[in-house]
């Protein structure tokens, strides 16, 4: 098992490298202060925290070695469906540094450049999604979902229908955040089944569309990577009973520049800037989840939004029926700078190419997966991703683990829940065909070897820094922090 060659020795924890008295930095030496007198002896800490004491080189070695135990887009193909692991341009990082020393409470006239950037980004995201107004505040996609559903809730209440509308409809293939968000906003969640063509079952949806429905949450293209062709009819049906249509923007990268949720009839969208607009995922965040709305929901946007008065940009807290604040300050500004940089680098034509090549790559890979003997349950031209099932007798988990030995990240596994043994594959537009070919050839080798030696797959991975983990033990006997000796 050759390619994923990493250090196999167990890496100590930073606490295990610690030696009393070592330091990795020299902060300004404080003046002597009588803390008991200034703060009150009773308010002072009794036992000092046990924090690492290491030299600067120890620190560098530790975190460099940790980095070497981590797959990443910059080193590995990473085709996680729905997660959009595309290349994160380095110029975005340079751009973010230009603004990183601004304090959020500086006087407005000293942050005009930052406010102008936010104002222009609000406009860019509005025109890209076909919405009338945007708030950049939410800190992640799920946070944007919550903001969106709370706006819908406020809208119904303002119309005197708050009591009546207690239900949010969510497809059975939806991201888990959709039902969790609706529940967090106090709604009962009712699932809508997927039809035989992999799209929302329109008859079933219509049967569930009653005056009690507050919102329908949809991802389009959906989590099978298929465009919901009846979207205009779905929107009309939802609106006919007074429900609002919510767009989960996780898959916007499939259609960006070519079609807009606003034109399809969606009333609210959230965007995951770390997906479509290349801000880094950072091992799980920070994400960024702006929300866009049609004009009738503008009055409910979370505050603040950035406004312009003549030549002056300012933070507008005065949104008449705002749902309030979702977090402190103005959103994940550093990521907003990165997304702005990306949009302005590509421009209108470049954005259209993003979706075009994302879809081309995904369809190319779907054909190649079929050649290998994978089943594609809803087999038609897909959008940015497709869902496949392994050849008979093989488990998705085992194949995924075997891929790790080759320095290749597997697809998203066991999602969506409506497909057994699902692998959800999203190559993105930034992978070359050679890279996709190599991915497929490696899969072919794995399948071949599995046919000759069934035990091999069950044992994979073999060459990774650690091998399959005892996850049951982790959950039954939780060890959630380092236990210092003695």
């Amino acid at each position: 098992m050759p390619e994923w060659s990493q250090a196999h020795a167990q890496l100590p924890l930073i606490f295990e490298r610690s030696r009393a008295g070592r330091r990795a930095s020299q902060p300004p030496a404080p003046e002597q202060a009588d803390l008991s007198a200034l703060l009150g002896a009773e308010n002072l800490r009794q036992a000092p925290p046990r924090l690492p004491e290491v030299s600067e080189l120890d620190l560098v070695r530790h975190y460099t070695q940790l980095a070497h135990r981590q797959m990443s887009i910059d080193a590995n193909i990473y085709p996680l469906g729905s997660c959009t692991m595309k290349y994160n341009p380095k110029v975005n990082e340079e751009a973010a540094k230009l603004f990183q020393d601004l304090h959020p409470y500086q006087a407005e006239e000293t942050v005009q450049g930052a406010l102008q950037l936010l104002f222009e980004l609000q406009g860019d995201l509005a025109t890209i999604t076909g919405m009338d107004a945007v708030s950049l505040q939410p800190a992640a996609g799920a946070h944007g979902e919550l903001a969106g559903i709370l706006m819908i809730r406020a809208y119904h209440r303002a119309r005197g229908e708050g009591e009546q509308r207690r239900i949010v409809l969510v497809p059975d293939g939806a991201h888990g955040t959709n039902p969790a968000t609706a529940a967090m906003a106090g709604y009962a969640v009712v699932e809508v089944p997927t039809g035989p063509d992999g799209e929302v079952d329109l008859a079933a949806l219509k049967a569930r569309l009653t005056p009690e429905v507050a919102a329908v949450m949809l991802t389009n293209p959906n989590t099978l990577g298929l465009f919901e062709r009846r979207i205009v009819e779905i929107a009309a049906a939802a609106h006919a009973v007074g429900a609002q249509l919510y767009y989960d923007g996780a898959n916007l990268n499939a259609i960006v520049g070519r079609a807009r949720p606003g034109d399809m009839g969606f009333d609210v969208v959230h965007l995951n800037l770390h997906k479509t607009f290349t801000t880094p995922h950072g091992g799980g965040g920070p994400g960024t989840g702006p929300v866009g709305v049609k004009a009738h929901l503008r009055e409910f946007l979370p505050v603040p939004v950035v406004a312009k008065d003549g030549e002056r940009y300012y933070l507008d807290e005065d949104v008449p029926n705002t749902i309030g604040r979702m977090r402190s300050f103005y959103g994940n500004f550093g990521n907003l700078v990165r997304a702005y940089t990306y949009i302005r680098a590509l421009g209108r034509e470049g954005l259209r190419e993003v979706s075009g090549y994302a879809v081309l790559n995904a369809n190319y890979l779907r054909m190649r997966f079929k050649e290998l003997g994978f089943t594609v349950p809803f087999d038609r031209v897909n959008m940015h991703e497709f869902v496949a099932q392994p050849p008979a007798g093989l488990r998705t988990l085992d194949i995924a683990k075997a891929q790790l030995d080759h320095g290749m990240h597997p697809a998203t596994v066991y999602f969506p829940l409506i497909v057994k043994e699902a692998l959800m594959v999203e190559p993105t537009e930034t992978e070359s065909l050679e890279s996709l070919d190599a991915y497929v050839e490696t899969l072919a080798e794995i399948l071949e070897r599995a046919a000759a030696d069934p035990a091999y797959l069950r044992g994979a991975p073999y060459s990774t820094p650690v091998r399959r983990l005892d996850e049951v033990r982790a959950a039954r006997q939780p060890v959630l922090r380092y236990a210092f000796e003695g």
Partner: protein
Amino acid sequence: MRYIPHTREDVERALAKVGAPSIDALFADLPQALQDPDIQVPTGMDEAGLLAHLRALAAKNRPEGPNFLGGGARRHFTPSVTAHLAMQSEFVTAYTPYQPEVAQGILQATFEYQTIMSELTGLPVSNASMYDGASAVAEGVLLAMRQTGRDRVLVSRGVHPETRAVIATYLAALDLELELLDLDPYTTPTPGVTDDVACVVAQQPNYLGYVEDMPALTGAAHASGALLVAAVDPLSLAVLAPPGEYGADIAAGDGQTLGNPLNFGGPAFGFMVVGEELIRQFPGRLVGETVDVDGKRAFVLTLQAREQHIRRSKAKSNICSNHQLTAIMAAINVAALGPAGLRDLAVGSVANAHKLADALTAAGFAPRVEARFFNEFVLSVGQPPAKLRSALARSGVHAGVAAPAEYGFGDAIILSATESTSAADIAALVTALVACGEGRALEVRNA
């Protein structure tokens, strides 16, 4: 084609494999009427032009100059090594560690982060991070409500106004409102707590900078079975009693002061640390230690049955992405500083804030120093804070987080100092205050 590797031959080869005549043909499922909308985004820029544009925008900002701004974000000394290590490609461009065999870097770094936050707060269980301080405290309130089965929430007015606003947003989703505990006039008097209260929320040091009697607030909450949610500045915990020492059930807050860039307010990260009895109701990701098939120590996301991707509408929160990278950056920074360095920053901040107050007093101003403060305090001024902030900015000094009218101090600002505040900075502030007319206000007051 920026960031897209395909040659013309590649496109032809891919289209042939798919059996489509063109890329556009792959979008046939999109209704024709929806296709190719008029998107008003400028034409793309090459890298040199793009950077020139961004630098021109950045030049309209003025981050430099003496800085006395706090209010939940501060500019502390950060060793150079912190950003270098945190911003390594492998951390920056990884996804959530769903394949633990190839994600031990993020997982171990997060386990170490959880340990550091546990040590700082004196509570046993930290999650892997939240979005920011305000939403972390709001999630702490929801956690207390789930745990107690009660729905009244008492929040000190000393809690940051934006944090209170976020709590209000989250509670409004459940048709609930928070109830305020007033200050008297700098800190929160011990409240009466009835047995229908889920939690008392207090901030240490509070928004105005003063030191609350957290043991008394905790005692009042516990006496009737309510939980205490402590909103804390993690850097202050190098010096101040940690929430675990006074019996708080939930510690939450914003981690920016542990060495994240200011970033005009984000991203930094939120944290939440709790007692073991709260684990099953805990929101957010948790990293646990286990072993692999060879018996080697390894780390993995655990107790996921609380989370949205498993439990969907029954999850403890809808949180998915957290703020992992900025949390790891904080852990690296704490390790770079060590316990002595972290303490130096906290002590230096306290010492300089008191020097600042003394200098203002000596210059004839009236900083409100009757109550104990950490590194921020209130200064009464003779003009509306918004006007003064602008005037100070014109003098090249960043100062004047408003102390809103709700605190009853009239026109007043909150000043903040850190270990990096110099004597020259303090002199510049005093000069600027006088230049902005505060000297005259002083004369009027003293006349």
